[in-house]
Structures are given as C-alpha cells and as structure tokens.
C-alpha cells in the first residue's frame, strides 16, 4: 500500500501547484515540494526493509484476462531509481522556483513535473509488464508536455512532437515485444519472468522479442540511431532537461535493460546489439558534443554518450559489467543533473548559452564556476571523482568481453576514443565558458544567482566528490542492493561477483586507457577548431532530424491522400462505404462457412403466401424502378407495406398485423404531406456506371441478408420463449403473450421505446419551429383554402366515434387478445389523422387543442409512475401486479398495473403521431399561420 501511495501522492498532488499559485509562486513550489517530499519520506520508510534484502510488494488483480495487474514491487534497483526520481525531483523543484520567470505559468509547470514524477515512479516500481508499459507511455506524454512547456516557441513544439513520435513509436514496438515475452514466459509478472531466464533465452521467439523490446529501450534512452530527439528536447526549460532528459526519463531505457537483465542478457545477440549500439552511441555522441556551441546541446550529446556507456555495460552481459552499469547510472545522474542546472544558471545570468560568446565567467560567477569545474571533471572521468570510478570499471570490463567483437583490442580502443572526446568536451565546457578573458558583449551582466537556486547544484557536486573519495561508505550499500536486484539475486539467488570500489587499483590496462583518454582529450580540445570545422564542413553525415522530418512529411502525405480519397464530403460516398463494410462483415463468414442448413422441419408454401410474395416483389421492384416519379413510388411502396401487414396475419401474428397496418396508414399520410412540399420528381442524374455499381452493391447486400435469413430459418430452433409462454398467465395475468412481454416482462424496454418516440416527436417539433419557409412554398394554394370533398369530410367525421370505440376495445382486451396500448394508440391516431385529411389542419387543430406535448409528457409520466409504484411495495422498477375482483353485474374483472402502464404507452403514441403530422401540416400553412421567416 505504501508503494501505491508513493506513486499516487505526486499524481494527486499535481493538482495542487496550479491551485496554490494564486497565493504566490513560492506557495506553488511549496505545494509541489510538499507532494514530492511526502512521497520521498514514504519511500525512505521502506529503505531499511529493502537494504535488509526484503522486497515490499503489492499485487491487486486488475484485468487478469489480458495479464494486466496492479503489481508493484520495490527491490534494490527500484529503490535506487526511486531515490534518483524523488531526490533529484525535489532539488529540481527548488531550482525551478528561481529559474522560471514571472511570465511562465508556474502552476502548470509543477503540475506536469509531478505528473511525470508519478509516471516515472510507476515505471521503476511496476512488477507487471503491461503496467510498466502504461507508466512508460505516461512518461512519454508528460515529457511531451514539459518539452512543449514554452508553447509559443516553434522549436519547443517541434522538439516535443519529435520526442513523442520517437519514444511513442518505441513504446509501440515495446508493447509488441512485451506481448511476445509474456507468451514465451507464460506470465506478465516481471519477477516471475526474471526467474525463468533460461526458458526465455532458448525460445524460438527470443530474437524478434528482444529486438522489439530493445527498440523501446533504445528510443527512450536516445541510443544511436534514435539519439537525435534528445538534443531537440533541450527546447524544454532547463530544470526539465536536468530532471527528465539527463537524470530520470532517458534512464528509463537503461532501466529496462537492467530490469530485464536476468531474463534477456547473456546471449551473443544481446551482446552484439546492445554493446554495439551502446559503444557506437558513446563515441558518435561524444564526438558531436565537442562541436556543439550551445551549452545545453553539448550536455545533451554528452548525456546521449553516457547513456551509451551504460547501455554498453549491460550489453557486455556479465554480472560484474551490470554492476558497473548500475554504478554509472548513479554517478551520471549526480554530475549531469548538476551540470544542466549549472548551464541554466549561466543562461539565466548572462542571457546566452553560446560558448562562442561566453568567456571568463570565473570573474563574475566564481562559485558557479568552481561547481562547474568539479562536475565537468566528474563527467570527464578524472580522479578523485565518482565519474572516474565507474568509467575505470567500464574500461576494465571491455577488456574482458565474453564475445569477440573483431580483434581483442578493438573494443577497448573504441571506448578509449569515446573517453577521449568526453574529456575534450568536458574541458571545453569549463574552459570556454569560465576561463579566458572576461567577455565584453554578453546580453546581461552576470551575478551569482540567488542562493536557493545554487543549492541543488552544490548538493549534487558534494555528492560527486563524496562518492569519489569514499565510494564504499557513501554508495557501497546502495550499489550492492541495486546491483544485486539487477543481476537477479532476489529472484534467482546466487551472490554478487567480487568488485572493489576504490580509486587506486594499481597500474593496469584500464588506467592506461584513462591516461590515454585524458591526454588525447586535452589535445583534442586544443584542436577543437579543426574538429568543429571537420564536423560542420567536410563530413556529410545524414542528419537525424532531416530523415525524421522527411519520414513524418511522407506519413502526412500518405494519410492525407487516403483521407481525401475516403472522405470527399459526400454522404452518398460514406453510405456506400458503410454498406460495403457491412456486406463484407456479413458476407465473409457466409462465404467461408457456407449455407449451413439444419434439420428444422420446413413448412410448405401455400398459394396465399406465394401470391403475397409475388406482390411484394412487384411492389419493391416497382418502387425502385419508378423512384424518380415520387407519387407512384409512394403508391407502390404502400403495396409492400400492405403485403407485409397481410403476411403477419397469415403467419399467425395478429398484433403485428394490426400495428403494421396502422403505422402504414400514418406513414403514407406523412410521406404524402412531405411530397406536397418536396419536388415531385427526382432528377435522373446518376451515370450508368453509378447505377450499375449501386445495383451490384445492393444485390450483394440483399444476397447476404437473404443468406443470413436462410441460415436462421433452417437452423434448429432453440428459443427462450417457452418461459414467456408458460409464465404469461400465471406471472403476467394475460393470455396475449406478445402484449404481456411488452408491458410486463420487458416493460423496461417498452418504457425506453416510448421515451425515444417522444424525443423523436419533440425533435420534429424543434426542426419545424426553427424552419424558415422558402418563398416557393407560399406560392400555390395553402391547404386551408382547398375545398374538402363533402362526402369524405362527412364519412371521416362519422368514422371518428366508431374508430375511437374500436380503439378502446383493442386497448381493453389487449392483455388477453390481440391489441394493447401501441395498437390502440395507433388506431386512435389514424382516426384523428383522417380528420386532418377530411377537414383540414385548422378545423382539427381547433378541436383538438394544442397541448400535444403535455399529452406526451403525461403518457410518459403515467408509465414511469406505474413502474415506480412497484417500489412502494418493495419490488423492483416496473414489477407487474394484477388481481381479480368480483364486481356485481360485470362478473369477475381483472385489474392489472400493466393496464395503467399500457395507458401511458397509448397516450404517448397518440400524441407523438399527431404532433408529427400536425406540425407537418402547419408548414405549408405558413402564410395563414404565422411562422417567423427570416431567410428569404
């Protein structure tokens, strides 16, 4: 639980700084520091347990089906990184308070920083591959936000995007790698995977899995050839560079190498890829670093180079080399974070970071200069500092590589050259900026910074010296547990290889390499002018940024052309694609599995059915053929509707037939009304090709649906309806099972449905209310001026009471015989709609009143209250109730709550239908009825 809190406190604390900043910038920094500090103290409380060899852990199943668990675990390696993240994080929070200017939104900065802190803690404490990946991506996201913090600067935005694309792309590769790794090991728990390294390494999938995982690690840790994003990420504020892009986030890649070391390391492939990439990165980046004029760019390439050293250490694959890698992670974090903050102070005080402008700062910034000198010496690997220790050990290990990379002397020679450039750029950092004559033309006259801004640098530099002088006492125990966890002592057992932490190992080959590197480095610094000239002029190296930009531009172009091809702004096109996709989705399984037919008994076709089918085909094809002539198409489609209604009668579904026939009437009236306003003909505008194409598509769609229908109809029936049939009378109190299902068993669905109907009606009302009426609709005769045929008017008026009686009859008997709220409502609506047809909108409207909305509301309310009523007796929503009463003269009468519910359905249906038609009728009456018209 403590582990979870260590992550959650900074995450939740991220909301505090933006809130506290209203009281001042210091308060905002204090809030951020408070959250980080609380987490730091919690972490410290676990230190004794981890140092004693215990591993606090937490395992909560989250999504076991995909192998994602909330599994956290703090071993030595996790503890080392937690100290780096929280310790340096605290220092950076202090530093940033003085670094950021008044114009910078400080609350947001600290919020992003804490968000990153929580994500990074998640990475190093995860004991589940996928959980680690989630936090990994969160660090990429927070890094994106922090690099782009100064969002008004184009290079900040570009740098942020580049970092996100590269590290995010690597994260995707890593996801694939993790899935493979999980399949190989049969588990996604990291500690379980580490215990079965032999199985992993002997798997046939080892090579692809390793390459994918390494892609994730290399992109994150800016290894060659993905190194170029890191220098561009330097557009971030310097505290971010110190924190994310030297001490912590870029270490996530090497952390992953360390974390999975027991499972993945030790093979030839691992050695050649990891050491090869690491050494290449180390040398290339160190060489480029020498020719950078920007302090931060120099440090960025130096960081890339040192990450290469660490990568190479793990690549060597021996336990002792892994120890060295872990040691160098600690040391590099200390001196590089201090140097970044140092560069930030120089920038802050002088207004420039250009080494060609800076000179002689030792006069104005003496303390800062001294701190820079010590930290640079550590970076160069000079004794008696921490950088010297780990670099010496690294040189030593390259002499004992397990696999041969060319002749035996080659690898040590290459790393010596890398060390040489390290020395050279370290000298350049100090000598060019702080030594020499005092510069005259600086943008600002420098002063020593406020003490709190320098304090974090001082702490880190003191640490560099202390580790250098007393390695065993200061860092020995920490290194022991961290290295032990790295090489898998906690999971696989065994003991740490012998190593000795001291400055003087006697005269040996590694010392010789160091001496060569220092002497050569000094020489290279003297000749830096020609090196820079060589780099900038003669060597036509491909630039990472150029390639990246070209790839991104290509991607944009390709996706742009795909989008333009698919999305041309035509709804017709989209619909065609939609239908094609649906046909493919339905058609593919049918094509592969065939038309499976079951043993279901088939009914013979009788003459009536065949006649129905004949009319249906004629009606459909006629509608399609005559669709340009809209009135005729409408008449033909009503034939189809009629056939469907009759088919329901024939197929023993009287409720459906009654519903369909009444809906049919209303729909046709509705469409006729629409045709009164719309053009009466559709133009023939489609080319033969389009018609042919659409014909093929529709025949395919029809065929696919027919096939599905055939499969359904011929497969043996297995229905859940037996329950409804058996329970209809005893449970629902009615013999008409369809109606009982609607109002009782599935009452909730019906309730939702009438709500939808009500919404549709209100939507229609809203559409018509806001509608401007075009001039052309006002020409011609308004409906009200038409003389209504007297015979029709008389007959429909006479029919009204009859129809209402029928509807009442249908409503009352609905529970036991065909009928019910829906059907009765539709019949009532039809009876009223024909009044509109026979007597006109005005006449009918006058007599009906205008509160159709209220009737919809009342209907819904009755249905809802019926449902809620069940609560009073302690039953769930919409539980039905019924009983029988003996009423004199009428005999036994059944009363059911479902009847009340059905009444709600009835009222809603009537009002919805009338609201639709009445509003449609009103449009054309715009001249008679006052409709606001602001368009013409």
């Amino acid at each position: 639980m403590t582990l979870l809190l260590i992550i959650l406190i900074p995450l939740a604390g991220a909301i505090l700084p933006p809130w506290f900043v209203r009281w001042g910038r210091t308060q905002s920094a204090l809030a951020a520091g408070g959250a980080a500090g609380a987490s730091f103290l919690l972490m410290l409380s676990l230190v004794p347990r981890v140092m004693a060899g215990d591993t606090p852990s937490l395992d909560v199943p989250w999504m076991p089906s995909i192998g994602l668990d909330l599994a956290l675990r703090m071993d030595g390696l996790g503890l080392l990184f937690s100290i780096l993240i929280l310790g340096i994080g605290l220092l950076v929070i202090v530093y940033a308070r003085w670094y950021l200017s008044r114009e910078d939104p400080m609350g947001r900065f600290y919020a992003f920083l804490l968000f990153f802190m929580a994500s990074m803690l998640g990475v190093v404490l995860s004991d589940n591959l996928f959980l680690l990946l989630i936090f990994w991506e969160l660090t990429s996201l927070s890094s994106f936000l922090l690099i782009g913090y100064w969002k008004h600067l184009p290079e900040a935005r570009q740098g942020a995007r580049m970092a996100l694309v590269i590290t995010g792309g690597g994260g995707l590769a890593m996801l694939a790698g993790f899935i493979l790794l999980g399949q190989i090991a049969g588990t996604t728990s990291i500690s379980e995977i580490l215990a079965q390294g032999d199985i992993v390494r002997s798997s046939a999938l080892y090579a692809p899995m390793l390459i994918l995982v390494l892609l994730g690690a290399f992109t994150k840790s800016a290894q060659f050839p993905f190194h170029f994003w890191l220098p561009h990420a330097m557009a971030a504020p310097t505290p971010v560079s110190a924190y994310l892009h030297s001490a912590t986030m870029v270490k996530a890649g090497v952390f992953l190498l360390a974390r999975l070391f027991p499972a993945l390391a030790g093979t030839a492939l691992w050695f050649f890829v990891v050491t090869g990439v690491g050494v290449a990165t180390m040398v290339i980046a160190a060489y480029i670093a020498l020719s950078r004029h920007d302090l931060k760019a120099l440090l960025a390439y130096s960081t890339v180079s040192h990450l290469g050293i660490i990568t190479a250490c793990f690549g060597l694959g021996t336990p002792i080399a892994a120890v060295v890698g872990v040691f160098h992670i600690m040391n590099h974090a200390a001196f590089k974070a201090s140097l970044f903050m140092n560069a930030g102070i120089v920038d802050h005080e002088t207004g420039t970071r250009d080494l060609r402008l800076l000179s002689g700062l030792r006069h104005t910034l003496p303390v800062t200069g001294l701190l820079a000198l010590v930290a640079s010496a550590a970076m160069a690997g000079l004794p008696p500092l921490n950088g010297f220790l780990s670099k010496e050990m690294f040189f030593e290990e390259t002499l004992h590589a397990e696999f041969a990379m060319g002749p035996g002397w080659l690898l040590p020679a290459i790393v010596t050259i890398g060390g040489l450039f390290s020395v050279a750029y370290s000298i350049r950092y100090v000598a060019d900026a702080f030594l020499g004559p005092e510069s005259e033309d600086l943008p600002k006259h420098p002063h020593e910074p406020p003490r709190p801004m320098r304090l974090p640098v001082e702490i880190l530099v003191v640490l560099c010296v202390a580790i250098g002088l007393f390695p065993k006492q200061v860092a020995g125990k920490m290194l022991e547990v961290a290295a032990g966890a790295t090489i898998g002592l906690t999971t696989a057992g065994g003991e740490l290889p012998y190593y000795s932490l001291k400055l003087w190992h006697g005269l040996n080959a590694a010392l010789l390499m160091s001496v060569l590197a220092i002497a050569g480095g000094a020489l290279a610094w003297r000749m830096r002018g020609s090196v820079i000239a060589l780099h900038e002029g003669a060597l036509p190296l491909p630039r990472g940024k150029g390639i990246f930009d070209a790839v991104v531009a290509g991607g944009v172009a390709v996706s742009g052309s795909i989008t333009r091809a698919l999305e041309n702004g035509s709804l017709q096109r989209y619909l065609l694609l939609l239908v094609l996709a649906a046909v493919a989705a339905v058609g593919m399984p049918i094509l592969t599995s065939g038309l499976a037919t079951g043993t279901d008994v088939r009914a013979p076709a009788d003459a009536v059915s065949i006649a129905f089918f004949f009319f249906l085909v004629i009606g459909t094809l006629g509608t399609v053929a005559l669709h340009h002539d809209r009135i005729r198409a409408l008449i033909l489609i009503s034939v189809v509707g009629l056939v469907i209604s009759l088919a329901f009668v024939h197929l023993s579904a009287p409720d459906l037939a009654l519903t369909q026939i009444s809906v049919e009437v209303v729909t046709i009236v509705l469409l006729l009304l629409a045709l009164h306003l719309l053009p009466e003909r559709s133009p023939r505008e489609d080319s033969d090709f389009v018609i042919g194409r659409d014909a093929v598509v529709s025949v395919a769609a029809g065929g696919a649906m027919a096939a599905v229908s055939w499969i359904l109809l011929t497969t043996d029936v297995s229905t859940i309806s037996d329950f409804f049939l058996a329970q209809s009378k005893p449970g629902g109190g009615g013999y008409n099972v369809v109606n009982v299902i609607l109002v009782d068993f599935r009452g909730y669905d019906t309730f939702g449905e009438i709500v939808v109907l009500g919404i549709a009606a209100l939507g229609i009302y809203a559409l018509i209310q806001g509608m401007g009426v075009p001039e052309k609709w006002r020409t011609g005769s308004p409906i009200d001026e038409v003389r209504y045929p007297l015979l029709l008017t008389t007959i429909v008026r006479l029919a009204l009471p009859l129809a209402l009686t029928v509807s009442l009859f249908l409503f009352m008997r609905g529970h036991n015989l065909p009928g019910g709220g829906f059907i009765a409502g539709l019949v009532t609506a039809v009876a009223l709609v024909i009044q509109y047809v026979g007597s006109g909108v005005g006449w009918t409207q006058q007599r009906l009143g205008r509160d159709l909305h209220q009737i919809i509301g009342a209907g819904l309310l009755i249905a809802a209250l019926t449902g809620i009523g069940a609560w009073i007796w302690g039953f769930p929503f919409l539980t039905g109730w019924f009983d029988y009463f003996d009423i004199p003269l009428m005999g036994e009468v059944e009363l059911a709550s479902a009847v009340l519910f059905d009444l709600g359905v009835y009222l809603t249906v009537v009002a919805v239908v009338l609201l639709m038609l009445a509003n449609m009728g009103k449009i054309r009456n715009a001249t008679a009825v006052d409709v606001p018209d602001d368009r013409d």
Partner: protein
Amino acid sequence: MELLVTLSVGVLVAGGVFLLLRARTFSTILGLALLSYAANLFLFASSYVRTGLAPISSLKDVPFPDPLPQALVLTAIVISFGMTGFVVVLSLRAYADLGSDHVDGGGDLPADAGTADAREGSG
C-alpha cells in the same frame, strides 16, 4: 415457405439499399422504409414461420407461434415509424434551408427546378 421469406428479405434489402444510395432525400426515405420492412420481416422470421398457429395462450391444443420475435418486431415497427417521421422532417428542413433535396445539400440542382415540377404536378 422459408425460401419465400428468405427471398422476400433479400429483395427488400436489395431494393432498400439501392434507394438508400440515391442522391435525393426522398429516395433515401423510401429506401429506409424498405429496409425497415426487411428488418421487421427478418426479425419476425428469426425463430420460425408457420401459418395457422394460435397466438393466444388460452386456446389449448393448438401450437403457439414464438411470441418473443413478435414483441421485438412490434416495438421495431413503432420505432421505425418515429425514425421515418424524423427523417422526413429533416429532409424538409434541409430542402428549406439549402434549397436542394440532394443529400449533400449541393446546389447542383437549381432550387426552382423542384418548385417548377411541383407546380406542374399540382396544376
């Protein structure tokens, strides 16, 4: 019988999809209506199709039809009516606002052409 229902569904879907792919709103509405018929018939037939069954469970000695698809289709009919009504009004509104009954609202058809047709028709 099964074959007839199957073919009916196929014909209705084919006709519906073809009309749905036309450029004018009214054809699209007709297409939707045909598709609704097809969907209702399809749903209804998802269990089995028989003639001469007793739909009311009080009549003994007669086999019942499957009531569940019937309940589904009953609500489907009413909902598709609500949808048709909405789409019809939407097409009217689009015609009024855009001056064209093309689904993309393009003005490729002069707005007066429709009115001229309408006048001829009503006159």
